[in-house]
């Protein structure tokens, strides 16, 4: 930077101002990182440093395996402690990015003798990557709208509740790392688009590779970027920079993506990736056309165009027809279930109950928008407008990103997470522009003082207004211009210069338009914006502290006696871990599979990786069958213990009785003898006196309510707020072996098969022929 200044022979004052601006910017970024990290520590401070929820336990277990056995063992890991008796190839079915990241961090720390446990590293991975994500947001927004907007957007992203919900300390999930990778990939794409540098294009492909490693959501990138490229081509913004930004990404990115075992050949075979290849072809055609256009005279070009168009269209139709035929021949049309439910929101509920049963795959409600992005929802439209004011490649990309992610978040509540960065960036732009306009108009309302003017002038001078105008008018000329620049200075100075080119176009025409606001109005406006930001901060801190920091394996409730802790899940897992045989199999509904393998270290039948619908349906069928049939199913699966979660005693709503409808639905989907209507009374699942006999006789009911009536004499279920239907019954095929302190988890053991009873034997022998009786008489003289 110093060199730049020296060569341009700027005044010492200017230099100092810029340097202090740079330092201030770096310091602010550091603080933003600290904010992003520390706002996510509420869960550790309020609860404890522990892995949260369900999926993170699996990731934690994989990381433990990685740190213990090394990378090669990890790729070949066949896990026999889950999906018994099928097992699961972990190395080939897991997105390894998160695990490898945390494993590397752990390895680094331990190699310099900092003895942090794997668990600690896993707990703090998400907050660390949130800080990274907010820095990446700064970079991305800076590419589009300059430093101010970048800092604003980074601050907003650092505390957006939607992202906090997935990245509090302990929430060790793919998304925590993936959002950083997503934003960083977009940044590198936009950066390449602005600079046309092959260096950034390569980095972009690597960053995309990291994203592919981390999360299945990488398909969003590989569809969004082609869409943007297409948009650029259609709006006549084709440039060689666009080509450099896109072509290496597709080629390198696809090659790299195919290296990830879980993606493999899907990177070229499934429909999710076809858009990118199509656009790749189109881009080349367009590039060819531009090339030929440069060679030929306009008249000749027209002739060539018509010829190429006719031939090309014919070829295209043929290719498309073949493609369609290929795709249509596969049953799901080449799309995975989750992607299909994105395109057709009603798909999952119609065909795949297992996807629909996950609460985070439901469409969100309006309050959840307000909860997750709060005031950003109102700021986003302003951001879109300011993106259009001078529409650049970068800002058009941001708008496109926002629009697509709004759609996806409307389909699945989980994809709100993808919307959050887009909303933050656009709100950051909006706020930054608004502050810019308001403060500037206040400044210019005043009689021009001596110190106000030079500063403003300073800002205007470097990016001359002509540059801005040309950018807006035609992309063609800009391309040439920047190419000239890049030829001229391929060094670091060059980068600095181009940042000016990229960021400056906003300013000049702003000057002319917006200094008209009256001082009072702009003062009010600033006040209003500050209040709005304040509200946002308050909401975010509240959400981080209260709504999203509960680890969900420990529940707390506050009463007049003080804090009450319900630690039943871990109580039961610890019991299983220490007091059952190592190879015992535990059956439970799939929600608790990951936790059981990670915390109790016991083999489970099904878990949260719902890859085998039939297996889950088998467990669902067993749970909704009468005791004897259920015993037979479980016994055939070699199950020794059955675990149920019961919230009736303390009023914990998300227990197995409330999840029971999915067991029936999924079980009934595979095994037709389970009929949902047998369990329904007036369209409801009820376990009170109105419950159907099938319902009150099924295994789940019995295991949950066994001897429940003896606690209060009435059998009042606090989770559902009524008395249960069938109060006194005995278990014939199962016996209670453990129930936790608050009855939240109950573990039953399958009774061993009975010895043959004498009566039954007699029955058999008497039914046989009389010759048998003779023999028996001889054998036993006392009979």
């Amino acid at each position, binding site marked *: 930077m*110093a*060199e730049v200044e020296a060569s341009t022979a700027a005044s010492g004052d200017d230099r100092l101002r810029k340097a202090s601006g740079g330092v201030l910017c770096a310091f602010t970024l550091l603080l933003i990182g600290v904010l992003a990290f520390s706002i996510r520590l509420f869960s550790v401070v309020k609860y404890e440093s522990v892995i949260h929820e369900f999926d993170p336990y699996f990731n934690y277990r994989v990381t433990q395996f990685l740190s213990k056995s090394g990378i090669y063992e990890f790729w070949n890991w066949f896990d026999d402690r889950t999906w018994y008796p099928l097992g699961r190839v972990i190395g080939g079915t897991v997105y390894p990015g998160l695990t490898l990241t945390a494993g590397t961090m752990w390895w680094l720390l331990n190699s310099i*003798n*900092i003895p942090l446990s794997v668990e600690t590293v896993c707990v703090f991975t998400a907050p660390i990557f949130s800080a990274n994500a907010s820095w990446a947001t700064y970079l991305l927004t800076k590419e589009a709208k300059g430093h101010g907007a970048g800092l604003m957007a980074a601050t907003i992203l650092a505390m957006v509740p939607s992202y906090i919900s997935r990245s509090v300390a302990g929430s060790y999930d793919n998304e925590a790392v993936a959002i950083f990778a997503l934003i960083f990939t977009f940044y590198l794409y936009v950066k390449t688009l602005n600079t046309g540098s092959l260096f950034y294009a390569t980095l972009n492909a690597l960053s995309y590779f990291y994203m592919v490693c981390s999360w299945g959501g990488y398909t969003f990138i590989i569809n969004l970027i082609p869409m943007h490229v297409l948009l650029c081509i259609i709006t006549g913004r084709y440039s060689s920079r666009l080509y450099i930004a896109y072509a290496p990404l597709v080629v390198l990115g696809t090659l790299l993506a195919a290296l990830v075992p879980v993606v493999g050949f899907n990177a070229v075979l499934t429909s999710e990736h076809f858009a990118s290849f199509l656009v790749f072809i189109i881009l080349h055609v367009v590039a060819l056309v531009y090339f030929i256009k440069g060679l030929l005279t306009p008249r000749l070009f027209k002739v060539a165009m018509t010829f190429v168009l006719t031939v090309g269209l014919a070829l295209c139709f043929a290719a498309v027809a073949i493609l369609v035929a290929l795709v249509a021949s596969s049953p799901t049309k080449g799309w995975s279930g989750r992607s299909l439910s994105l395109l057709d929101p009603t798909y999952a509920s119609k065909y795949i109950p297992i996807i629909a049963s996950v609460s985070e795959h439901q469409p969100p409600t309006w309050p959840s928008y307000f909860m997750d992005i709060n005031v950003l929802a109102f700021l986003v439209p302003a951001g879109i407008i300011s993106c259009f004011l001078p529409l650049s490649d970068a800002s058009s990309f941001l708008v496109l990103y926002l629009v697509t992610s709004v759609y996806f978040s409307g389909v699945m509540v989980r994809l709100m997470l993808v919307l959050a960065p887009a909303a933050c960036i656009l709100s950051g732009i909006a706020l930054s522009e608004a502050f810019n306009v308001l403060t500037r108009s206040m400044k210019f309302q005043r009689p021009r003082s001596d110190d106000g003017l030079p500063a403003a002038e300073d800002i205007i001078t470097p990016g001359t207004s002509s540059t801005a105008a040309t950018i807006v008018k035609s992309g063609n000329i800009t391309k040439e211009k920047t190419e000239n620049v890049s030829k001229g200075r391929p060094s670091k100075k060059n980068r600095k210069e181009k940042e000016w080119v990229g960021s400056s176009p906003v300013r000049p025409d702003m000057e002319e338009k917006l200094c008209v606001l009256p001082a009072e109005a702009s003062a009010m406006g600033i006040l209003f914006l500050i209040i709005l930001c304040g509200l946002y901060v308050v909401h975010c801190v509240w959400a981080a502290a209260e709504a999203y920091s509960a680890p969900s394996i420990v529940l707390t409730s506050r009463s007049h006696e003080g804090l009450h802790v319900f*630690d039943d899940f871990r109580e039961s897992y*610890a019991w299983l871990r220490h*007091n059952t045989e190592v190879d015992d199999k535990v059956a439970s509904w799939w929600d608790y599979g990951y936790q059981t393998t990670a915390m109790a270290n016991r083999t489970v039948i099904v878990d949260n990786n719902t890859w085998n619908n039939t297996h889950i349906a088998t467990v669902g069928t067993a749970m909704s069958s009468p005791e004897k049939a259920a015993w037979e199913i479980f016994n055939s699966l070699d199950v020794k213990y059955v675990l149920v979660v019961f919230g009736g005693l303390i009023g914990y709503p998300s227990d197995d009785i409330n999840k029971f409808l999915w067991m029936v639905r999924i079980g009934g989907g595979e095994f037709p003898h389970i009929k949902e209507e047998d369990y329904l009374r007036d369209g409801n699942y009820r376990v009170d006196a109105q419950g159907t006999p099938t319902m009150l006789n099924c295994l789940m009911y019995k295991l949950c309510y066994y*001897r429940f009536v003896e606690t209060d004499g009435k059998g009042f279920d606090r989770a559902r707020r009524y008395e249960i239907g069938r109060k006194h019954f005995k278990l014939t095929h199962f016996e209670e*072996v453990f129930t936790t*302190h608050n009855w939240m988890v109950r573990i039953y053991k399958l009774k061993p098969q009975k010895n043959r009873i004498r009566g039954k034997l007699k029955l058999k022998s008497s039914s046989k022929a009389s010759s048998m009786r003779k023999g028996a008489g001889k054998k036993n003289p006392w009979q």
Partner: protein
Amino acid sequence: MAPSLPTSILLLLAVAFTVVSAATSTSPTAPEDGIRVVSAEKRIDLTGPIVKVYLTLKVHNPATGSDASHVLIAFTPLEAQHLAIVKATRAEGKRKKKVYVPLPVEPVDLAANAPDGARLYSVSLSAPLRPSETTTMEVFYVLTHSLEPFPAEITQSESQLVYYRDSAVLLSPYHVLEQVTYVKMPSNRVESFTRVDPTSRSGPEVKYGTYKDQLPYAYSPILLHHENNHPFAVVEELVRKVEISHWGNVQVTEQYKLKHGGARHKGVFSRLEYQARQSISGASSFKNLLARLPPRVHSVYYRDEIGNISSSNLRTDSHKSELEFEPRYPLFGGWHCTFTIGYGMPLQDFLFESEDGRRFANLTFGCPLLNTVVDDLTIKIVLPEGSKSPQAVVPFLTEQHLETSYSYLDVVGRTTVVLKKKNVVGEHNVPFQVYYEFNPVFMLAEPLMLISAVLLFFVACIAYLHMDLSIGKSQAS
């Protein structure tokens, strides 16, 4: 037959010779030096999970003998296996000024051992017992794992019955002239006990004796079957790690593997009955444990491999800290659990400088849990990086070796003294010392390393900003 006669004579002679030689080879511990036990009283305390035995021996050295510097105590092989600790004291001085002087006790070599594999322990007297002198000794010993649950498996509603096996008469290498044995049991519920007349029982206490003129190594087995619902908490493995930092903290981490060592639980565990009828349901189970920690402990934590356990309570005063905690679930017979307790202590309470310039840490041996047996105890004392020639001084036999452990940016590693002992009970909670040499300069090693790393980082940044790393030649604009 002719050749057999001389052989048999030879044999006889040989036997006689060996007997004589055994008698004549007067090792200091041989019982032939004529000591007699004038009167003995044995009190067996069965009220807890650990058996405690108090012996009062009045020992007389006859006029014919020589000075006796040792008195022997005998144990059966099984007892010797379960013996955790033996202590002996001798009463000195007359009535009012009576003081009890502790005496060293050592196991005697196997070669000199007595019939039927009985193990002998020798108590060295502070002043030798002269001929025709009499002295009184108190011997105290602790037996672990000596209460055998019978029935071995009980259900939740049954209470726990145990067997205790011992001898009515005192097992001793000497003539015992007069002897009584008292056995105290925890409750009145005594299923059965062996009678060796004269025997009498009053409530929970059974008296055997008085027996007169017992020969050396007399043994008359008794079996007591009684109720004992005390928590049989057994720590199968305890690893205590004490990290000494000269920056002012002693960090202790204790990893426990706990087991209920009583009668195994069988069949159903009903939480309902456990909660509703606590007095009769699961009488032998336990859910509370009490650890006595040093005073002024800070940052105490209690967790296991899957996270924090939120049921603990710390009480501190100026003499001690008491940590009362519950495992995640109540422990029934045969159930296991593991947990970790950690705490920090101020350094000045434990680290001192000896006269020769060495430092020594004064720590407590044993396990802070009350009323538990530790089957396998490992204490690791991690000395600060750069400390030399460590030496542990423990008042009893332990297995010792040195290790090197690494933590927090160590380069050469920290010297670690490892002490191991099996079968540890509360009586082992006595102070022990670890001496080592330490140069305070080493305290600065790690801060200096960090400072230089940060410095290097800045230097690298400055260098990077002043270099043009581009391949192509930069042209002036």
